[in-house]
């Protein structure tokens, strides 16, 4: 079982909003289209995206995602941070590309049998 905090530590991600870091990351979904995440993301997934606006938090809440990773050195907007804090949603950031982040996370999840 891989927790969000293990992913943050293992991948050296910056913790922008610390929500429930001890939640299990059941899997991962990657998309920059929000309705695609609504349709195909699964509860407990950690979500990798380039989007930084507040609606990503709403998507995470509605879908029950375990956290959000924003790639390519992008930062969540101030409203996004505020919303994530009030909804207890973890937001992590990285300078790595989505591809690199996904590759590293894939290996981590597979090693933990997810």
């Amino acid at each position: 079982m891989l927790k969000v905090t293990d992913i943050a530590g293992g991948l050296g991600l910056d913790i922008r909003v610390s929500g429930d870091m001890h939640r299990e990351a059941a899997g991962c979904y990657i998309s920059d289209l929000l309705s695609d995440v609504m349709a195909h993301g699964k509860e407990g997934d950690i979500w990798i995206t380039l989007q930084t606006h507040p609606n990503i938090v709403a998507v995470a809440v509605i879908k029950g995602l375990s956290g959000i990773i924003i790639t390519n050195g992008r930062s969540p907007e101030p409203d996004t941070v505020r919303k994530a804090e009030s909804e207890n949603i973890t937001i992590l950031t990285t300078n790595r590309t989505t591809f690199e982040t996904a590759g590293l996370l894939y290996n981590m999840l597979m090693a933990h049998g997810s």
Partner: protein
Amino acid sequence: MHITDSIEGFFQLMGGDFTNAGSASGELKSTLTKLGVSQDVIRRAAIAAFEAEMNVIIHAVAGTMHYSIGSEELKITLTDMGPGIEDIELAMREGYSTAPDWVREMGWGAGMGLPNIKRNSDNLKIDSVVGEGTTLEIIISIRIIAIRKD
């Protein structure tokens, strides 16, 4: 256990208010969770309600969301003052969208909203008048497992 009286909720939605998008659907989700409705119904209701809420925020000036949870079904009704839908059949097609570019840059407007709503509803009724607005009635059959006393 059965719900004898239906439980209702009502929300005002403001067009363009992306910051608060999802609060109506989020509240519906917590209400259903507290009632002990099955996970599958909660998941489907949350997706359908949120996509419908986003449609109002993206396309309309203002609107309302009303829900009614009965012993057998959940009914979510969204009524908006918006542009209306010219061709409902076309709007239901995956990939078709009339959203402006700046909304697409946010990752919305991929033409997946109405198909997502349809897929997660047991019955979907759309009434729309061009230049006046749109009413969506989403029905989801429910089965109450247990009512939590908190």
